[in-house]
């Protein structure tokens, strides 16, 4: 009997099969390897030798799997690439298969087997893999099985950004905090995985026919399969041995006899090439560590037993994203009670228990005032009638000042957020929050610690005396997984990796979030806080990287709560009683949740309505105040809303004697809508625009997107085009435009490459265009050359509208340019009016700056509406960019029309006391890597605060809200140095 062996070393597990000459499995094993790869392989081989192979000396064996590559090379295993292995197995066992979807620990793959073999694997993104689902399950505090069970009872699906676990977390956390049902969230997570897999991997190729589901997640999670079935409109099969296809393929591909003993010897001796980049140790010896400990033990606030508390007390709660913290202090700011617990979702029951505990332990407590901060601020404040709500940044600042009155820089690294800010003249000046990335946070360490079988504290401790901390650089958690794997492959020890990860957390925080290059930039007086800094290794790494000594308060993890308590003390008025729920009321307290969709505007926010026992309600998930107050938001001072209405007014009403033409309403077509409408209407051609973007429209086009890293506004174009086709339009006009209108503001007047040529991508990736025989018109047009434009346009359109005359085109073009100018001047006039009215009323004016297509509510996610709710006026960059008459000098090549406006707008507001700028940046926008630095520079030179908001598919505005509130309160503090802080 001839046996063949296949091993599959995946990112988290090792799978082994032995097959006989009939390709029947006679042995299989499936285990986690906890990254001890060579040891585990040796173990598996020994078992094989002893129990299965019965004295066979030479055996046909091969290895597969991404984590096995290095060891295969070094030990002389024949290696089979894992996707290729899957294909071999599927071809044999399921020859009728058309497509395979295989999800693994960190990999996701789609194989197309019919009509030209194509294989796709996730490259730079691990969103939508097993690791992602694990992360989400731990966020929900359930096991994978429980999650699957929960999902069976779902009622609705939330939109969860699936690009990356980080984004998904920012979507899920608020849902939990606002009381979203776990069953709905579980199911939504599975749908997010499906969307990620399809969007990221299908790349324009339709998944249809017989679909095979392989790999751990799809084998174990029936609801995930159901979600795939639902989205793909098919019924896929999860075959027998679905976990083992890679190892089966490897076994099938084995054709060389290998001596088992030699192999075993090589594997056992395979250690470690020691070939990885490393950094100096965190501590060279015990003495160094002790001195370090001693220094940090000095930053103390006194903590006394609870029963010693006398007189009025102040309660501070920090309902953070992954933990809940609470502090009770007395008039002298000494602490008597602290609580630090992990928050497994909805903070309401936790706070209830907590308050109950306080009232029980100290029945005579007189709480004078209370305040709450953090993600859960709104709901906790409402549920328990807490006196004050305070934005996190301010809370942390207040606490930091207590330890270092002259503090210049505060950095707080929590579970999944980094908050840091500079303090300038006693006010918060520059705020950095991580929005797109949680790689500089505690959850990052947490992930690795638990993957390697440790808790975070002991894992981090391992690194203190590591001899050669791995240099892992500064990158995303997902990438880091593979980097760690590589380091392990190269022989790094757990200690080296632990120390390396601590260094990485710090680097991510410094270079990705704050983007500092030297300690001088941040100031010499630094307070560090947040749970992550409780790890000495991280603290040490921070000091080493910064080259300075910093202060870590003994209540480092409680600073938000302490700050809230301090704030409560500062704000409370002597003769007023606290509104906080009393012990008696607390006993009656109940809390119910209903989920619904708001129908009051096009954002369709998913609302969670919390109903408390006394009939009070609290609504979460809303962007604006409308569902709460039922009042229409005052959009009078919001130019975004004006612009959107103005664009609608261009919808044409011509008969269209010459026929009709469809135009997708996205990217640069936003600003050029008046231009094209008037141009075509003047030629008696009816223009049909695709509707405003929506989630549904996005999903409709999603399967045709070839590059998963292109910006969201570009991705939306696929939906617009498909929608136009669905609407029955036969001619679609979407020109390529290298150049934009020349506004004489810079060295050139380009569009960015994506805006310029996206119709080429559309043309080659949306099959419906051919299938439906659409006349897709994508000429290269230069609207920057007014004189040539008419004849060039005529040349290009003549084949599609043969009876066009040059003369009428010339006339129409004139009208079009005029319409474009009129459109812009209308916006500027309205903008000026808003400025005037805001000034009359003494309101702050915010320039919400971005691109014309950031007007799309699906792209800006209603940020403008949210801003409006803070009682400020909103204008856009094009309102003020023309107010600077002279050419300005910038330190970049100023060559894109839309981007030039940003520099000019920033430059203009330098001298406008009541104006500030917020820049919207689409995730993945390469050009904004250049503009953001320059805009920041222009503003900071004028002592203005720069605020950047990264937007993507992301739909929750929690982080954005923190930013805006911090900004507004910083602005107010700037104005009113001596007064109390007024926080919105």
């Amino acid at each position, binding site marked *: 009997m001839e046996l063949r062996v296949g091993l599959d070393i995946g990112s988290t597990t090792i799978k082994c099969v032995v097959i006989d000459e009939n390709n029947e499995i006679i042995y299989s094993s499936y285990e986690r390897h906890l990254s001890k790869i060579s040891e585990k392989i040796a173990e598996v081989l020994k078992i094989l030798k002893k129990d299965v192979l019965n004295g066979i000396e030479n055996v046909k064996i091969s290895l597969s799997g991404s984590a096995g590559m290095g060891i295969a090379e070094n030990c002389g295993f024949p290696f089979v690439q894992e996707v290729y292995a899957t294909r071999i197995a599927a071809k044999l066992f399921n020859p009728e298969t058309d497509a395979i979807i295989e999800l693994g620990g960190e990999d996701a793959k789609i194989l197309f087997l019919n009509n030209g073999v194509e294989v796709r694997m996730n490259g730079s993104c691990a969103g939508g893999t097993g690791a992602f689902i694990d992360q989400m399950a731990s966020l929900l505090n359930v096991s994978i099985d429980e999650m699957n069970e929960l999902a069976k009872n779902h009622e609705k699906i939330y939109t969860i950004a699936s690009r990356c676990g980080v984004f998904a977390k920012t979507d899920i956390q608020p849902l939990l905090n606002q009381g979203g049902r776990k069953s709905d969230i579980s199911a939504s997570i599975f749908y997010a995985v499906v969307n990620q897999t399809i969007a990221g991997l299908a790349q324009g190729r339709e998944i249809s026919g017989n679909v095979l589901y392989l790999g751990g997640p799809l084998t174990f999670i029936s609801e995930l399969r159901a979600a795939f079935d639902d989205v793909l409109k098919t019924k896929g099969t999860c075959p027998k041995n679905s976990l083992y296809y890679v190892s089966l393929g490897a076994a099938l591909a084995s054709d060389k006899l290998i001596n088992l003993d030699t192999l075993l010897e090589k594997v056992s001796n395979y250690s470690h090439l020691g070939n990885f980049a490393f950094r100096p140790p965190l501590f060279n010896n015990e003495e160094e560590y002790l001195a370090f400990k001693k220094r940090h033990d000095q930053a103390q606030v006194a903590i006394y037993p609870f029963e010693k508390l006398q007189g009025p007390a102040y309660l501070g709660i920090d309902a953070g994203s992954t933990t809940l913290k609470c502090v009770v202090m007395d008039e002298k700011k000494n602490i008597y009670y602290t609580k630090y617990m992990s928050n497994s979702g909805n903070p309401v029951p936790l706070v209830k228990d907590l308050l109950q505990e306080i009232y029980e332990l100290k029945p005579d407590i007189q709480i004078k005032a209370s305040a709450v901060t953090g993600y859960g601020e709104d709901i906790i404040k409402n549920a328990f009638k807490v006196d004050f709500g305070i934005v996190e940044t301010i809370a942390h600042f207040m606490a930091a000042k207590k330890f270092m009155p002259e503090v210049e820089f505060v950095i707080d690294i929590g579970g999944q957020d980094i908050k840091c800010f500079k303090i300038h003249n006693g006010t918060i000046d520059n705020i950095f929050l991580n929005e797109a990335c949680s790689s500089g946070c505690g959850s990052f360490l947490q992930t690795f610690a638990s993957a390697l079988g440790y808790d975070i504290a002991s894992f981090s401790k391992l690194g203190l005396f590591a001899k050669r901390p791995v240099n892992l650089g500064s990158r995303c958690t997902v*990438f880091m997984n593979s980097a760690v794997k590589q380091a392990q492959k190269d022989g790094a020890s757990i200690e080296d990796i632990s120390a390396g990860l601590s260094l990485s957390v710090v680097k991510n925080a410094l270079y990705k979030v704050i983007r500092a290059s030297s300690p001088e930039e941040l100031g010499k007086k630094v307070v560090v806080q947040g749970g992550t800094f409780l790890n000495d290794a991280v603290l040490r790494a921070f000091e080493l990287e910064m080259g300075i000594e910093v202060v870590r308060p003994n209540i480092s993890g409680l600073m938000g709560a302490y700050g809230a308590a301090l704030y409560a003390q500062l704000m409370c008025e002597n003769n007023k009683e606290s509104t906080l729920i009393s012990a008696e009321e607390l006993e009656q307290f109940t809390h119910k949740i209903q989920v619904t969709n708001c129908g009051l505007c096009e954002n369709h926010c998913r609302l969670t309505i919390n109903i408390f026992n006394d009939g009070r309600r609290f609504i979460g998930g809303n962007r604006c105040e409308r569902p709460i107050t039922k009042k229409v938001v005052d959009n009078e001072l919001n130019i975004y809303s004006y612009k959107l209405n103005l664009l609608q007014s261009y919808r044409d009403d011509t008969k269209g004697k010459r026929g009709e033409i469809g135009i997708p309403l996205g990217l640069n077509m936003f600003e050029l809508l008046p231009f094209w409408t008037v141009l075509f209407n003047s030629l008696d051609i009816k223009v049909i625009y695709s509707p405003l973007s929506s989630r549904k429209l996005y999903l409709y086009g999603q399967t045709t997107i070839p590059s998963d890293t292109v910006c969201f506004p570009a991705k939306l174009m696929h939906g617009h085009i498909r929608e136009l086709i669905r609407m029955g339009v036969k001619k679609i006009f979407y020109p390529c435009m290298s150049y934009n209108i020349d506004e004489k503001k810079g060295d050139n007047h380009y569009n960015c*490459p994506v805006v310029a040529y996206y119709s080429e991508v559309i043309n080659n990736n949306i099959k419906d265009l051919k299938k439906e025989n659409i006349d897709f018109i994508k000429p290269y047009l230069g609207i920057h050359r007014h004189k*040539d434009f008419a004849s060039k346009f005529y040349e290009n359109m003549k084949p599609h509208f043969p009876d066009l005359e040059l003369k009428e085109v010339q006339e129409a073009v004139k009208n079009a340019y005029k319409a474009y100018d009129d459109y812009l001047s209308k916006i500027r006039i309205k903008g000026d009016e808003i400025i005037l009215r805001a000034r009359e009323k003494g309101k702050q004016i915010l320039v919400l700056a971005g691109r014309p297509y950031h007007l799309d509510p699906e792209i800006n996610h209603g940020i403008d509406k949210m801003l409006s709710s803070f009682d400020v006026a909103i204008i856009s960059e094009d309102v003020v960019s023309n107010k600077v008459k002279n050419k300005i000098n910038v330190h970049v090549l100023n060559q894109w029309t839309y981007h030039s406006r940003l520099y000019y707008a920033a430059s203009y507001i330098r001298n406008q006391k009541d104006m500030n700028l917020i820049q919207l940046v689409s995730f993945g926008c390469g050009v904004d890597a250049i503009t953001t630095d320059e805009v920041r520079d222009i503003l900071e030179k004028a002592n203005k605060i720069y605020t950047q908001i990264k937007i993507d598919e992301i739909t929750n505005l929690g982080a954005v809200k923190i930013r805006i509130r911090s900004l507004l309160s910083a602005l107010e503090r700037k104005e009113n140095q001596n007064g109390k802080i007024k926080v919105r």
Partner: protein
Amino acid sequence: MEKLKYDKKTGRLLFTKQMRRDYTILFPMMAPIHFEILGKVFKKLGYNCELLETNGPEIAQTGLKYVHNDTCYPAILSIGQLINAVQSGRYDVNKVALMITQTGGGCRASNYIHLLRKGLKKAGLEQIPVISLNLSGMEKNPGFKLTVGMIRRAVAGVIYGDSLMCLRNQCRPYEINDGDTDRLVKKWQDEIVSMLNQSKGYKLKEIKENLIKIADDFHSLEVDRSEKKVKVGVVGEIYVKYAALGNNNLEKFLEEENCEVNLPGILGFVLFKIDNRLEDIKLYGGSKIKRKVCQILMDYCLKVEDALVTSISRYDEFVAPSRYYHTKSLVDGVIGYGTKMGEGWLLTAEMLELVESGYHNIVCTQPFGCLPNHIAGKGMIRKIVETNPKANIVAVDYDAGAPKVNQENRIKLMLSIARENLEKEKVNI
């Protein structure tokens, strides 16, 4: 340090004539064969140029420290390499200047020079002048002028480099005596430098003669072509396509996997950039004089190209590069000639050219989030594969955070398919 002079209008620090005398000019590595020649030629012309051959992880780290992390990887690496060199202590920071190319297109790459200046400022090295190397007349410096003579030498350097690269790639995998091919490359590099430095070897006639001699020499190498190897073409964003630092030693990896590699040459990119100006005029209108000037330059380069193609076509065992206009014709109906930013339509065309010349297996390299590549690279692969079922293309992103092991795994997958196809081919024969 020489006296620092600034441009009156923009305030930019100038590279002065005085500096030219005693400053060392550093420039970052891209395509080794070409750049080594160019560096030595510039040196002879009175610029104390030094090509940076440094590598190692600290280059990317330096880049990340001084350049916006979301910027493209080539910027992070080339700026990292420059600043890392300046900080290394090997040079007098008051007697050093930096040189970097600038294309002036609508892609981010035109901004590298500004990002470099910002980086220098961050590093406290504002006294270091930066020279823009470009053909568009941007950023003039009193101490650095591109003369016609320099341009002609540069064009010659590029064409010799293309020839050597093309032939080396087709010989080295098959050589019988280890190192023969590389020795021949080195010999010719030296000879070319010495010719150019004696003001020889850059006239068209001389170029023709030399290219033939080069092809002859490579033809006489002892090779064994009996084993059919997997043929892999590499296209992509120009920096990560050529620079080993940018693509994690892709060429070496592929050779170790027993492949024959084909990197389309740099001359095609030069032609593309000139042609863009002509296409612009055609598409949008523009001055006739400008068109004339570009056409002259274009015609000259096409003649040089002809010399290259002719020289290599003389031998059947070599696959000569396709002619520019032929390559261009391949994308007709696939992507418009107005797509000019970055590598533009040329990237798509090179994939089609490779498929046509028998290199069905292609690695399409790009920096993570490269904007033009969304269009001309990833955006066109679908279409290419649809119309050329044999095409086997893998797109690989390069980035400071993308680990080598993932990239190699993806490439290995492509190679598995390639080997399977090769086996089928053998069976069919």
